[in-house]
């Protein structure tokens, strides 16, 4: 492997940094030129519009000048090798990075034309509009009902208990989980299987009727059958929501998304229609990644 690698580097000197794995990506790696983005970053009907977003973790420049749109009713897949910054970028979209000590975000991120980075923006209602599903299913250690009801309750979405129950039921139905849990709503959410837990987390996110749902590798801890169910669900949810999904599985990106963004060491390398990216990538790095030459 090592021999192959050095041979490859000798042949393609411009790719040398790309051969480094993230753990080895020291500050020297980040001194290189910033790479521009290939492809169309803008969407015709944008829900979110990011312009020149930079993220620093302490001294580390984790995201460099990323501009990207999330369209209405589209699934945007973000792919790239580990540590490329796709999760970090995703977490900018609902300002979850605020909770990370030493993390600084700059740039402009518009949600329906309003800058969410403005100092007077309250993150609480923002996160009600931009929901999130995490890599590891993280249901609250409470009942299935309480898991879904928590969001509507704290935001005061339901006027009565009956209304709350209606929201919970419809959210579970939308998350394709209702049939499996309708007889045990009072059971703890942590007692469900991994795939069910993740769908519960999706139900929890859609219970507050967000406009955008961010999904950070939602299927990485799941078996293929659960993954298929979630992918089907994502496709259905697209009708009502914009979805950003970070994934390590290129097949998954190809299956569920309309547009795909390829990140590499903090740069957004290429954006485009999913069909085009996977069939005819324009950037060499994108092609290397999706053909499995590295990553």
């Amino acid at each position, binding site marked *: 492997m090592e021999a192959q690698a050095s041979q490859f580097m000798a042949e393609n000197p411009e790719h040398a940094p790309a051969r480094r794995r993230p753990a080895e990506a020291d500050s020297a790696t980040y001194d290189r030129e910033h790479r521009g983005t290939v492809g169309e970053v803008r969407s015709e009907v944008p829900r979110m519009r990011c312009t020149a977003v930079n993220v620093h973790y302490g001294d580390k420049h984790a995201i460099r000048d990323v501009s990207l749109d999330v369209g209405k009713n589209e699934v945007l897949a973000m792919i790239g090798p580990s540590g490329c910054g796709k999760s970090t970028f995703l977490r900018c979209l609902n300002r979850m990075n605020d909770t990370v000590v030493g993390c600084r975000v700059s740039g402009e991120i518009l949600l329906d034309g309003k800058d969410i980075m403005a100092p007077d923006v309250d993150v609480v209602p923002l996160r*009600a509009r931009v929901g999130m599903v995490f890599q590891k299913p993280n249901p609250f250690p409470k009942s299935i009902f309480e898991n879904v009801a928590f969001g509507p309750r704290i935001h005061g979405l339901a006027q009565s208990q009956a209304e709350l129950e209606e929201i919970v039921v419809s959210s579970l139905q939308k998350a394709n989980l209702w049939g499996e849990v309708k007889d045990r709503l009072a059971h703890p959410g942590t007692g469900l299987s991994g795939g069910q837990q993740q769908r519960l987390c999706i139900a*929890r996110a859609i219970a507050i009727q967000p406009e955008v749902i961010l999904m950070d590798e939602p299927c990485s801890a799941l078996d293929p059958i659960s993954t298929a169910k979630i992918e089907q669900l994502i496709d259905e949810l697209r009708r009502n929501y914009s979805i950003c999904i970070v994934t390590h599985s290129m097949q998954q990106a190809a299956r569920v998304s309309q547009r795909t963004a390829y990140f590499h060491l903090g740069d957004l390398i290429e954006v485009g229609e999913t069909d085009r990216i996977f069939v005819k990538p324009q950037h060499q790095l994108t092609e290397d990644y999706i053909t499995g030459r590295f990553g």
Partner: protein
Amino acid sequence: MSEPSQPVRDSFARVEAGMKRRRAAERRFRFFGKCAVGLGLGFLVILFVSIVGNGYSAFWQTRITLEVTIDEASIDPSGVRDPAVLQAADYGALIKQSMRELFPDVSGRRNRIALYGLVSNGASFDLRDRILADPSLIGTTISLSVAADDDVDMLMKGHIDRGAPEADRRIKDNQLAWIEKLEADDRIGSAFNLDFFSNGDSREPELAGIRGALMGSIYTLFVTLGLSFPLAVAAAVYLEEFAPKNRWTDLIEVNINNLAAVPSIVFGLLGLAVFINFFTLPRSAPIVGGLVLTLMTLPTIIIASRAALKSVPPSIREGALGVGASPMQAVMYHVLPLALPGMLTGTIIGMAQALGETAPLLMIGMVAFIADVPAGVFDPATALPVQIYLWADSPERAYVEKTSAAIIVLLLFLAAMNALAVLLRRRFERRW
């Protein structure tokens, strides 16, 4: 083909050879572990056997049955049954009278004093209480069971050797003869020592009880729990969940950790200077004891609570924040309930520490001799460990068993507290 397989077989052999050593090491380690546990249990058994063996007899008290004639002329000469008069009457004389009637041939002042000394000074109070409760007894003769003097009690419990020379005995020959006569008449016997649980401290061992110290400890711990638990939880939640991480919070953390290691007597001195001298709170009062012990237990509970908060997976916080909970909602609805069992464990450790703490209480005057049972946090009181210390320091033989009995009460209190904590923890852990 046989060549490459050779080294494999070699390494198997080497592993096999090493296995013997590894298994032996494993066995040795287990043996040491069992030894350690066995040793610990052994000492525990020795402790319990010695304390219970010494202390159980304190729960029984020798009592002497007297026929007391309640003479109206000496108790209530006017005959109006005025409670004030009844309260002040000389009941001791009645007890002495009945003792004289039992032993009519005792003569001489010295002998009579020795005779009266067989029953406790508290006997007259028992009689007074009985008469005050039922004045119609005046003029009749009642059979009254009174506590025997502590020396008689010790003799009956076998702690005084009847065969020893008279000069070495607290019970003299003539007293011994009277006691033997009482035994023959079946007038002397043993009964459950209710006084021990209803009285405060006393200079007379047969009257000394644990109630004063027990109530003092309960009030003190009540104050401690009421102050330290909310303060410590609030401090831990703020420091762990909300405070920015900078030099100041680092400094605070270091200081909290140091505070946990400060000798407790220093807190006592602080309490004396601040709460008593500056804020002029009463001396010897559970409120001051509670405040001082709060200072002492705060760091323990804060450290345990922070550890409990740290152990709540961050994914729970993220999940709550991700659906738009404010940081406070995330903490209140999700993090705190999950951390609560751990916090309770820390609290109970702190409270157990506080319960057993003596040194700081000495500094704030809770070591005083207090015969009354405290009725509130501002009344003078002492605490269980201080009571143990006081009794252990008393010269009378009867205090030896009282000391052990007080230790039993303290340990039972501790066990009850721990049981309550386990119960609470179970409850909170099951709540989904």
